[in-house]
Every structure is written in C-alpha cells, then in structure tokens.
C-alpha cells in the first residue's frame, strides 16, 4: 500500500468517526429527556463518548495531514480538496480547544456536523496529489494557507455557537422575522448538504450530459476544437447556443440566458439549481416529520443551557480567530504576494474577499465592544460572518476566478 493510499484511508476513518461523533452528540442532546433518564448524566455520558470519538477522528486526520504531506512533499493545502479538508481539520482543532476551556457538550452537537459537511464537501473535488506549480513553490504556501485556515476554523466555531445561541433564545411560539431568517439559515445549510449529496450520488452513477458550445478552445495537445461542457449532474438547464452531443438521464427543462457567458456558467447554474432544490426537499421533508419550524424542533434539546455562556463562547472564538485570521489571511498573504508577484496587495478577488471578512469581523468587534451588541445581534453577525467566509473560500474560487483559482468543480 502506497503512502498516499494510507493517507486517503486515514481521512476516510476520520470522516467516519466525525459522523459517528455527530450522531452521538445529537443523541446526547436529544436523548436527555427520554423516559427514565437523568438528563445531566445522560448528556455527560454520551457527550464524553462523542468527544473522544472526535478526538480519535482528529488524530486520524492528523495522520492524514502528515502522511499526505510526506507523500506529496508539500503541505496538503494546494488545491480545493486539500484546502477544504484542512479547513475542516482546523474547525475540529478549534472545537477541541474551545471544549477544553468551556467543557460544554452541546457545542460539539453543532460543530461536528459542520465538520462533517465541510469534509464531505472536500470529497466533491478531485483528490489526486498533484505536484506544485511554480507559483505555489514557496514555504509561504504552508505558512499562509495553514494559518488562514486555522483562523477561519476558529471563526467557524464562533458561527456554530452563534447559531446555537439563536436557536436557543429566539422564541418559537409565534412566527417573527427572526424565526423566518433562522429557518432561511438552516435551509441554506441543508442546501449545502443537498449539494454534497447530489454531487456524490451523481458522480457514482454512470451518466454524463455533454454539450458542445459554438466557441472554440485549444486543447492541451494543441488542437482547436469546439468547447465541450460536461455535466456530471443531469441537465436542468442547458448552455445558451449549445448542441447536445451526449444525452443524459433527462432532457434540459430550459436554456440559460444569453448573458450568462463563460464556458462553465450554465453548468454552475445547473449545479446550483440542483443544490437549492435538494436542500428545499430536505428542508420540506424535515418540516413534515417534525410538523414545526426546524429551530423549534431543535430548541427543546438545548433546554437548560446558559445562553450567556454560549454568547461568550461565540465571542471568545471570534476574538481568538480574528487575530489568527488577520495574520494568516492578510499579513502572511501580503508577504507572500510581495515575494511572488512583487506587490503586497493587488485587489485580486480573493484578496478583496479576505479583506471583506476582516472588515466584517472588525465591525463585529466594534459593535460588540463599543455599541453593546451582545446576544442576538452579535450571534446574527457571527452567522453572516461565516457566510462571508464561505463565499471567500468557495464562491470566489469557483465563480470569480482570479489568481487564486484552483482546479475545481
């Protein structure tokens, strides 16, 4: 067995353990009101089991990071798969640290599922170890990307705690603007889940839809040929002015508008439609099962938790994550940019979005420290902040290509 295969296996083990740990965490929270149980003891026992599962999973993922680093000869942060897996690793690490400080079981019930989603998302991208292209051959790759990922991981824990605070404190008796927005947030999380489910399911099925565009491109071997667009998901929307050359399982319902230019625009739109639809189906299904708002369904499991402590954990995570993020995503980034390109700042989309994340959390800190935005307002901001981080990590790379574009989906 090759080293990289061991590495893949270790990541699979970590993934499996995170899933298991999430399940046990959820049992720890929801099962405490089961008949004949002492709620405190139940939560403690299952919480401890889940925590140790997460620890073992983290060790396995550490093994993955080390073996992949050795096998590839560079830190596993050089493409989308590696980065998302590493980001996930940082989320779990941040969780373990926060847990050591606050010993609060319920945080795991939010962070671990988030970890599972992020790791599952990384599996969507090509997993091969590729050699480093010249622009990435710098020790700053290790320093800049790992520190930035760590900062973002800690901020993600701030988001998990913030979301928990909202579910815990927003009254669910009557529908308000807050309850509606909270449902929107949960639905968006489910859309991400839906995307991962759709992408991995369709990838395993033997189906492809291929369109030929009118524009020409040069292939790697130097021939000029019409551009081909290959859909891995069944086509709901076809590219404009394209010819279907390989039929998929379904025929497209409509054509993308003309102004959506670019080779992959229609394919991305198609993927987005699938994600939104599957997310809504998941959401609708869950609502049917619980017969109430999702947040209302989760709320009873959080009973007895001190909201102020949750608020503090969220703030604490952000106040630790903010300096780390600044160092990794901005300062180290500027030093590397200076070494690689000769300008420390170039308003490249990725740079701009890192700045936006930073400005946003700066605003968060000022509002919290100077204008007394604690509790719900601050929790909402932690949620929005994480959305901005996801835009920076995912949307910017996949939709707005710039200097940081990795090979991606």
């Amino acid at each position: 067995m090759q080293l990289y295969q061991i590495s893949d296996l270790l990541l699979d083990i970590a993934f499996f353990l995170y899933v298991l740990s999430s399940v046990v965490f959820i049992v720890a929270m929801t099962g405490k009101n089961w008949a004949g149980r002492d709620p405190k003891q139940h939560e403690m026992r299952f919480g401890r089991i889940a925590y140790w599962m997460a620890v073992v999973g983290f060790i396995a993922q550490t093994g993955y990071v080390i073996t992949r680093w050795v096998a590839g000869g560079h830190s596993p942060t050089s493409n989308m798969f590696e980065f998302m897996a590493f980001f996930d690793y940082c989320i779990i690490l941040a969780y373990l640290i926060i847990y050591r400080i606050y010993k609060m079981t319920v945080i795991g019930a939010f962070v671990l599922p988030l970890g599972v989603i992020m790791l599952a998302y990384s599996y969507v991208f090509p997993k091969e170890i590729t050699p480093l292209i010249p622009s990435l051959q710098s020790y700053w790759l290790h320093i800049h990307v790992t520190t930035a990922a760590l900062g973002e991981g800690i901020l993600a824990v701030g988001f998990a705690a913030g979301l928990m605070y909202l579910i815990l404190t927003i009254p669910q008796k009557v529908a308000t603007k807050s309850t509606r927005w909270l449902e929107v947030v949960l639905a968006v999380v489910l859309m991400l889940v839906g995307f991962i489910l759709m992408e991995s399911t369709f990838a395993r099925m033997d189906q492809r839809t291929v369109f030929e565009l009118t524009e020409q491109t040069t292939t790697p071997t130097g021939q000029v040929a019409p551009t081909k667009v290959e859909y891995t998901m069944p086509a709901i929307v076809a590219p404009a002015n394209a010819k279907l050359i390989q039929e998929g399982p379904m025929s497209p319902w409509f054509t993308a508008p003309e102004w959506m230019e670019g080779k992959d625009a229609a394919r991305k739109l198609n993927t987005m439609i699938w994600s939104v639809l599957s997310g809504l189906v998941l959401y609708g299904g869950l609502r049917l099962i619980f017969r109430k708002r999702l947040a209302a369904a989760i709320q009873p499991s959080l009973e007895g938790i001190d909201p102020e402590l949750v608020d503090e954990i969220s703030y604490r995570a952000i106040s630790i994550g903010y300096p780390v993020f600044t160092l990794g995503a901005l300062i180290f980034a500027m030093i590397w940019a200076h070494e690689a390109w000769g300008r420390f700042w170039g308003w490249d989309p990725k740079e701009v979005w890192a700045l936006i994340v930073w400005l946003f959390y700066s605003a968060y800190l000022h509002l919290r420290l100077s204008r007394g935005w604690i509790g719900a307002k601050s929790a909402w901001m932690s949620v929005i902040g994480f959305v901005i981080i996801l835009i920076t990590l995912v949307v910017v790379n996949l939709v707005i290509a710039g200097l940081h574009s990795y090979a991606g989906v």
Partner: protein
Amino acid sequence: MDQRKCECGHTNPVGTLLCESCGKPLELDLTDKAAFPDMRYEGMARRSQTYTTTIVDRIWNTFSSVKVAIWIIVVILVASGVGTIFPQQQYIPVPVPTELDVERFYTDTYGILGTIFYQLGFHNMYSSWWFVLLLVLLGASLIICSLDRVIPLYKALNKPRLNQHKSFLKGQKLYAETKQPMDRSAEEILAQSAEALKKKGYYLFQTDRALLAEKGRFSRWGPYVNHIGLILFLIGVLMRSLPGFHLDEYVWVREGETVPIPETPYYVKNLGFKVEYYSEDEMVQKLDLKGGVIAKSYQTDAILYLNRNADTPGAKPDLVEVQSGPIIVNHPMKYEDIYLYQSGYQEMKLGALNFTLIDLKNGDKEVGPIKLDLYNPQEEIQVADGMKVRILDYFPDFAMGKDGKPITQTNLPKNPMFALEVLDERDAINEKLVYLQGSILTQKDNPRYGLKIEMPDLVDISGLNVRTDKALPLIFFGSFVFMIGVSMGFFWQHRRIWVQLQEGNVLIAGHTNKNWFGLRKEVQGMVEQTNLSVTLEDKTKA
C-alpha cells in the same frame, strides 16, 4: 455649568459619569441597573463629548464616533464586494487597453450589467477617488477615535480606585454581598482574599477595609496599539504615491538581449530562459492530464547592470554588472531597492533566419552560411572570401499594402520578408533574391546563386516584472504592531476584583472586558478559599 459636584464633595469635569473620587454614578437613577454607565473608562470624561461649540469640534466629534467608524467600514466592505462582481481592468485580457476596447470587453463579456459596471467606473474601483477618500476617512477616524479615548483610558488605568461607592460595586455585573463572619476580622478576610488572588497572578492594592485585585491591565492598551499599527500601515500605503517610492515596470527580454528598465538607471540581460515540466515519475499519483503537462519551474538567468551614463536617456550606456543569477517564480532577483520577478514568457519565437548560399552553376556548391538576425539585421554579411550579401529591404511582419507595395504590419518579426542581393568583391551585382514565408524567389529565371533554408534560430522571450516598494518596511512594521495590539487585546483580559468591608458586610464585585466565564471561576475560587458563604449573582440573568 462646567463642573459637577458629587455628594462626596469632589468636583468632576464635564462628561464624567462616575465620580472621580468616590465612584458614585453622577446624575443617574441607580434603581435602573441597565443604565449603569459604561465601565470602559471608569466613567472618565471622554474629551470629544464634552464640547460641541465650534465647527472644528463638530468635525472632530464626527470622526471620534465609533458609529461613524463602523459606517465607514461597512461602506468600504460593500464597495469592495461590488468591485469583485466582474474583474477589475488590470485583470481583463485586453492587450492594449484603450478606453473603447475596455468598454467593449465589459459589454461583450458581461452584457448590460457589464456596461453599467464600466459606466460607473467600477472597473477601476480601488484606485478611484471616492474609494481613496473612504480609506482616508477610515484613517482619520482611526486617528481621532484613538486620540479621543487614550487620555481617559490612561487616567482610568493609572489611578485604580480602591474605595468604591457601594452603588458602584452593586452596579457591576458580578456582585455578591454577605454578612461579615463573626470569627474573623476585616484584616483577616482581606488577607485571605489577597492571598487567594495573588496566587492567580493579580496585583493587589489594599487598605485596611478594601482590596482591589487587578491583572492584565496592559491588555486594555491593545486596541490603541493595533490602531497605531493600522495608522502606520495606512501611512505606508500613502507613501507609495510619493515620487520614487514605488516602481512597477514590465520588460520583455529576448535571450541574449540587454534592455533598459524604464524609469531606472538599470539594464537587464537575459542569458537564457528555461521551463521545466514534471516528468511522470515525479508525480505521486497517475494523473489524467488529457495530454497536457504541469510546469515545474520557470527560470531566467539574468544579469543586472547599472548604467553609469544614465543622465541622458537613449545615450550610449556605460554598463557595470551589479548583480547576476537566476530569477525564478517566488525567488526574485534583488538589488538594493529593486526586485526583478519572473512573470511571463513566450517560447520558441523566431530569432534569426539561417540560410546557406549555394552556387547553382557549380554543382550546388555551398558557398557559406548566412544568418539574418530578425531584430538586429546587419546591412552586409560576409559569406565567404569575396562574397557578401546585402539586405535591400526587410519587412518584419510582411503584408501587401493597398497600393500593391509590400509593407510591414508591426515591428515584430511575425512574418519576415527579406530582399537580398548577392555581391562579389567588385560590388558587381550577381543576383537578387527574396525570402518570404518559407520560400525563395529569384529575379532571374536561370539564377547563378540560390539559398538553401536551414533551421532558424528560435529564442525564448522572458517577461520580467521590475518593482520597487520603499514603503514596504513601514507597511509590514505597521502590520506587526497591529498583531501585537490585537494579541494584547484579545489573548489577555483586564480583570478587576473588589473586596470591601462596609457596615459589617463583605462586598465582592468583579469586572472584566471579556471572558466573564474565566473571571467568575476565579472569584468563585477565591470565595471558596476564604470560606465565605456567598453565592455569586449574575446581574444579566435577573
């Protein structure tokens, strides 16, 4: 009214919230706990809030408001985001950006939204006057906010009040009160508390009836330090606009060529350029590259020269070598303030055409080689003894003009055409020949001399980015100071615990700027060690 008097007799400056002497809140209804003043400066007057008379004060006050600062941050944030919807002009693939081409690019690529983006000037957003204005406003806000708060903070931190008014202690989020135990004196209780807190690393201030324990005071300076870092950073950014502080030039250098670097007294020579690709056995896993390859390195071996005759541009240079070595991606060449970056390349471009002159009447005998340099052709080339070739015409990028005469479309040798004449020693014209698109045309039907086409010289052209950024040390120093500031502010906390004996009661209060969880644990620990029967109440839960 310029000053306000507390019931304890002390007169305080306008804007003071808590009496400077006894700590009693001024002008407040103490039954309303939510209205307890902000603890940040222990109720010291913040300068800006004290005067609002003149226009100068009004401007000052606007900038000193955190609310305004947050609005500036939010506006910059939103604008920055909008600027990434479509690429900025510097990232679009338009080779020679005339305004018309740029506009057409946005319209053709992104449709009506692209046109709007262009019309609003968002394609150059980050250097637009209004974006720069926003950044300067942010800088102004940073400076004035900091100046405005640093004095009250200094006062507050420098004279920690031991004896606080009971209403002050009661106003704290963490507060407990219990009867003084009969078996112990005030001194004993305070001594025990002091010992417990000292172990936790607190500094102690004591009188016979009051104890103030404090730690992490320096963390309160964090925000000022990080704001100073940001101000230095912004000054650095501003300095880049000073003449000579910032240079950004791009030069294309052929292999073997020496070119001047614009705006500098330097010349750079390209000794050779090479690209390396990964071989299959260097890859850990088999990859499906669809016939493509992955580049391993781009490298230009270069020499940097200083021109000692740089006073008159264009004059014959007097070059001295100052630096030499490879320029590799991520490893620029550095000399004094100047950096040279490997930034682009064009491989296998025509550099020179090679021919062999052939005597057709003499059994196709090879007379000698002819090299026609496409960038720097000599007028006359000695081919062999007594035989030379003279260039009559050279069109680097040949095309037929409207008037039927040959022209060149550019000054780059994309499609070279040469008209040559072969001469013997007496300059008697023997032959006229034309080279065009891989074939030789002759004037006569039955020529004596002909040309055999040999492999042409191919050269690589290296794109080098030349940059100087003299403000960089300040920019990175500012970043460093910022990091120190945020670390001070966020990784440490300012904690204060008051223990006082008043009217037979023990009063305990605590304050921190963050991490109440940690503070509560420490106060709890102290209470346990001193055996006081108090339960800590948390005000916010009431």
